């Protein structure tokens, strides 16, 4: 016998309107799930009182120290009994999705069946870190739910001071801007480090994210401690037929206003056909019989704007790889910080390249584990010790691509100048 459904006058107002209603979904679940019936009761109380009524605790699965978010109700009656007892325990399992969040329907149906059997039937696709969030299980059912999800090929994600679930863009699966195999790189970095995800022992959270190009569709630069973003070193590639088609449809006005003037480094110019530069680092696109769009690839910062406006006509070059940025995070404690460049370019094509990325990732995690203060993100550590010390700690060479501009104050002790110059000369020799 399903439980009596509580009155929910405020939530009911979220059932109207054109956008799909989560309330309607919760109510549908409540028809045959007591936990969901009571969850609606507590949620309505939160709406009435403008207060949250959950507290944390410790719930986990055998063998792991994290990945489950425990929730116990704090909404009690005068006798200290939960007002909504069937939802008194409402734990979440964070589960790592397939990279790129691709599914076939059989897999999704299996996940639904498992969660209908053991939990509330409510699944978030997906959390902001990327997890499939299976929300609403009693303490008792967390383990059996995990066992079945795990047997189905899924594993818990991260929570607490741990390596967190990662995310990659759709990238190579369906995007011409993609400069590396995002899904493969994600799995090559995360899967060897699961111990740090499943047994939280880092100073605080640590997130990796993977975007195939500087459009950064998964927001790695702001939301991850370690961002891997695709880029290229050689010239922008050209498809003249598509460029001409674009120009025929859009005309000179849009070429100038929407493309040329929006280039952040003024790398673009419009030339009369025949007058374009023949230099090796220049891409010249014949837009029509008379007009050429010229790209100075040395000045181009790979911002993606012109490629976005003229899809297919301009494409990333062939000498592709990634830029690595470290230190992105949200507000706490020093204010939001973006990831900043620690490796301007590395190739990411062969197994050896992926291994090198894996080693570097491991180095940075180890440095974080050894040097960050408790509850400090790596961006804050870098803020505290300075980028140069961080680089030295993880064994990366300095590079002028890491700064927007050199220091504008003299407050620095420079008696090591000659040695530093010697290092620079040596690096230049090695690179040559």
């Amino acid at each position: 016998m399903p439980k009596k459904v509580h009155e929910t006058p405020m939530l009911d107002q979220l059932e109207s309107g054109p956008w799909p209603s989560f309330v309607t979904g919760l109510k549908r679940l409540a028809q045959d799930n007591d936990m969901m019936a009571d969850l609606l009761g507590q949620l309505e109380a939160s709406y009435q009182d403008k207060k949250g009524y959950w507290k944390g605790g410790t719930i986990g699965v055998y063998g792991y120290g994290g990945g489950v978010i425990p929730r116990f109700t704090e909404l009690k009656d005068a006798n200290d009994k939960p007002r909504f007892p069937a939802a008194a325990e409402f734990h979440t399992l964070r589960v790592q999705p397939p990279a790129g969040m691709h599914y076939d329907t059989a897999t999704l149906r299996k996940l639904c069946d498992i969660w209908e059997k053991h939990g509330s039937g409510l699944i978030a696709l997906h959390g902001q870190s990327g997890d499939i969030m299976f929300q609403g299980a009693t303490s008792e059912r967390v383990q059996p739910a995990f066992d079945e999800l795990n047997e189905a090929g899924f594993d818990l994600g991260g929570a607490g001071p741990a390596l967190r679930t990662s995310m990659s863009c759709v990238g190579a699966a369906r995007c011409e801007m993609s400069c590396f195999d995002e899904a493969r790189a994600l799995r090559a970095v995360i899967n060897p480090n699961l111990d740090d995800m499943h047994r939280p022992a880092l100073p605080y959270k640590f997130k990796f994210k993977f975007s195939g190009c500087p459009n950064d569709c998964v927001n790695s630069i702001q939301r991850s401690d370690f961002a891997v973003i695709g880029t290229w070193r050689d010239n922008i590639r050209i498809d003249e037929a598509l460029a001409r088609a674009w120009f025929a449809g859009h005309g000179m006005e849009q070429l100038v206003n929407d493309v040329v003037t929006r280039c952040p480094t003024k790398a673009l110019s419009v030339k009369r056909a025949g007058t374009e530069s023949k230099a090796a680092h220049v891409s010249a696109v014949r837009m029509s019989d008379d007009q050429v769009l010229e790209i100075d690839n040395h000045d181009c910062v790979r911002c993606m704007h012109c490629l976005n406006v003229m899809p297919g006509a301009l494409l990333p070059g062939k000498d592709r790889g990634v830029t690595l940025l470290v230190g992105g995070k949200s507000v706490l404690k020093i204010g939001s910080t973006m990831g900043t460049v620690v490796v301007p370019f590395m190739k990411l094509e062969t197994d050896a390249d992926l291994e090198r990325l894996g080693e570097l990732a491991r180095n940075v995690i180890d440095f974080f584990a050894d040097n960050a203060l408790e509850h400090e993100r790596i961006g804050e550590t870098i803020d505290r010790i300075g980028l140069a010390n961080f680089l030295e700690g993880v064994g990366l060479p300095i590079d002028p691509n890491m700064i927007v501009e050199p220091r504008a104050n003299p407050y620095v002790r420079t008696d090591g100048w000659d040695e530093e110059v010697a290092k620079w000369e040596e690096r230049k020799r090695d690179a040559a």
Partner: protein
Amino acid sequence: MAAAHRAPIESGVPDPMPLMHPVMRKNYGKWVYHNHPKPGVLYHRAAGGDEIWTVKAGTQRQLDVHSIRKLCDIGDRYADGHLRFTARSNVEYMVADASKVDPLIEALSAAGFPVGGTANSVSMIAHTQGFLHCDIPGTDASGVVKALMDELYEEFVKCEMPNRVKLSTSCCEINCGGQADMAIIMQHTKPPKINHDLVANICERPAVVARCPVAAIRPALVNGKPSLEVDEKKCVCCGACYPPCPPMQINDPEHSKIAIWVGGKNANARGRPTFHKLVASGLPNNPPRWPEVAAAVRKILATYKADARPWERMVDWIERIGWPRFFEKTGLPFTKYHIDDWRGARRTLNASTHIRF
């Protein structure tokens, strides 16, 4: 009597390849062109000539199994049995045959999933857990998003903005919802109210002291019990102390307000990535539909839509017209709270005579 425990299989991130639409798998890394035939639909072509159409639709993100099965039914019937989700909880179906696009759109629309969210749309709002599952929320997440997406529905399905618009909501200042063109974030206005009877038992006091970004918390004896006290002149009401110490209640049904931030951009396109900036605050936390917040969001978006040039994201538009005109055009008041005084803030002051008249 030790019960036999099943050891977990530490399989980590599943391989997406077997789950991916076969045309995507076959052309993995070989795409060369895309366009936007109509709102909610993307067309991609691979080097060898293979084509794929994507139909994108909004979901409620907090999905009951019945809704997920409905999405699966649509996938089985109209889209070769595959689907994927975007970082903003939109669902995407891929089909290798143009004639399958319209029936798919009809099926999604009939099932109540709005088709759109591509190109220059206001896409689904990245959001958090709120009252449903968070232990520290000042307001709800899913409800705010439902209320706002009802208001912004036309912009989701029509894709007529100057450029992409990404929104986020967060039910506390920690901002799990993230940076966005426009972010709607809880803003506390009063220091935490401390239940001194509970602090000693629940809170690890030195850890709580260390969390405060302005060193406003210190250990104290209150009514003979070890507790914590807050220097209310220093406190910036950020709520950082609340997660590690729930007796330091920061949420206040009346005084916790909602703020709006604009101009965040994570893409590197044109200018470097930017963080969103505070433009409005003091909006009431008014469930279940937050009408004051919705009105402010609509006003800012309408101003941007009318005034921005093609390809200008919110931040590009504001960089062109300048902040004074942003406040003028949106009708939002400019206050002393808009002037940053956190570390490094002088960088945000106008150290020039560049002034637009």
